């Protein structure tokens, strides 16, 4: 369980995350949605202690993220960020192996190697494992970074817009993969998503943010509602039920 208590982060007088309090349930897949500039990525960075908060507290399984030692937290919680710029020339395998650093501090054991191989296979990059990152397409790179998070094998996995750069096939495969992490391995997956239909189809729980604040939260069937979506995104849309899934048509 991730408890976010009264977290505030401002740049100058502009609060990008404004007194947000919420509890992200353990296990299952939680999506964070909201328009650009709503503070989703900032909140995720604060939860994963990449960014200090001005006020408030974040507890992951009761551990305060701003006080707990980095390497202890790195075995509980991992994050994949939006922009992953790396100067070093790394192969896919090198990159994924970094996911084991919190456990092995750079000396891979047989167990670590197995984790690395399983993670690469999971995202379907076996054929590319010796390629350098700058020799991959955007989508393949994205999957390599996902594999690194898988390899870190933490109970909590945060993904900041993991579907960026991915085509339809890989976007769906990625979401299914995240779903499997939650269902088969009992992980807690938190994803920032832009495509509302992906959020609707794959989430157990949806959190909506707007202007740095928590707007709504709830299960997809409550959240995917024209009036709520209007309040979150300022967009008129219609919601259709297709099988068990509610799909949003916001094109008209």
């Amino acid at each position, binding site marked *: 369980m991730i408890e976010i208590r009264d977290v505030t982060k401002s740049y100058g007088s502009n609060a990008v995350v404004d007194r947000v309090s919420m509890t992200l349930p353990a296990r299952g897949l939680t999506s964070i949605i909201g328009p650009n500039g709503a503070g989703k990525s900032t909140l995720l960075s604060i939860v994963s*202690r990449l960014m200090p908060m001005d006020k408030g507290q974040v507890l992951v399984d009761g551990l305060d993220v701003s006080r707990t030692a980095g*390497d202890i937290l790195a075995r509980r919680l991992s994050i994949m960020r939006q922009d992953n710029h790396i100067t*070093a020339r790394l192969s896919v395998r*090198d990159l994924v192996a*970094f996911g084991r650093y*919190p456990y092995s501090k750079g000396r891979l054991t047989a167990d670590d190697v197995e984790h690395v191989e399983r993670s690469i296979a999971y995202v379907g990059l076996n054929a590319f494992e010796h390629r350098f990152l700058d020799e991959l397409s955007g989508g393949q790179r994205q999957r390599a970074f996902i594999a690194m998070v898988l390899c870190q094998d933490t109970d909590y996995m945060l993904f900041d817009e993991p579907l960026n750069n991915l085509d339809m096939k890989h976007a769906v495969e990625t979401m299914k993969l995240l779903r499997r992490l939650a269902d088969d391995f009992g992980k807690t997956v938190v994803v920032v998503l832009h495509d509302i239909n992906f959020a609707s189809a794959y989430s157990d729980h949806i959190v909506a943010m707007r202007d740095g604040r928590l707007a709504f939260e709830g299960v997809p069937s409550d959240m995917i509602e024209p009036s709520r979506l209007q309040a979150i995104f300022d967009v008129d849309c219609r919601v259709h039920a297709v099988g068990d899934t509610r799909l949003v048509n916001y094109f008209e």
Partner: protein
Amino acid sequence: MQADLKRISPAGMLLVTAILALVSMLAFMTLGAKGSWAFILSFRGTKLAGMILVAYAIAVSTILFQTISGNRILTPSIIGFDAMYALLQTVMVFFLGAAGATAADPRLQFLIETAAMVGFSVLLFRALFSGATRSLHLLMLVGIILGGLFRSLSSFLQRILDPNEFIVLQDRLFASFNTVNVDLLGISAVAVAGVTFVLWRLFPTFDVLSLGRESAIGLGVDHHRTVTILLVLIAVLVSVSTALVGPVTFFGLLVASLAWQITPTASHRFVLPIAVCLAIVTLVGGQVILERLFAFNTALSIVIEFVGGLVFIFLLVRGSAR
């Protein structure tokens, strides 16, 4: 070129550079030796020890600086380390006079200079990293501007200096691998050993740091603490090399870029020792060629700065082309 080099394993590359380094050391000690071996070995031995210390200090400080800044064309001199050394020397000659500065215990001078440079880097780092903006690039920019300030101050003081004293100062400011400061060898060796011990303990974090701040934190590295310690160690290493031979701007860049280029992996386990070996080859081998082929007609630092400058321009041009 890269395609060919990929076939050599990292360990093989390390072996090749290590052998080259050994050969150049051996050549330096034995070539053209006439007269008493006891004298030659001790005379050349101290010079060699000095050059090895400098090679190690410059190679390691540059590689680590590039790792923490995430940039392959930066060197410690860019944040004003060299300029600060020149200013310290100038101030010393200015206020103590040439005689006073020469008479003062060089070890004491070394300690004061090192302390000042470490203090400078920590102050700069703390001031820029404790605020809201935690940007290494801001640190670089402020460093570049302070470097400019130091240089202007030095040149101002040099202009109003007595010409005789200025000659003494100039002699101290030109890097010379031929006149290694022997008085400082012992204390430099101790400083380098101390730095190496701390580096050894931090070694596993280097590769992770090269992934960038966020990834390093995500993997559990205390980024702020580690980078602060590394900057202090880099300051000590730069002090050692400048105190021993004087400021060399492009040497570190030359050696570091070559090391990144020829090492088939980005792992510091290989890049660091290969860079050190390359630095030894360049310095010691270069000195041999200079002494035996050109009969001391030119200074090694001039050659190295010339080649290093060319490499720097090449890297800039290639970087913009990509």
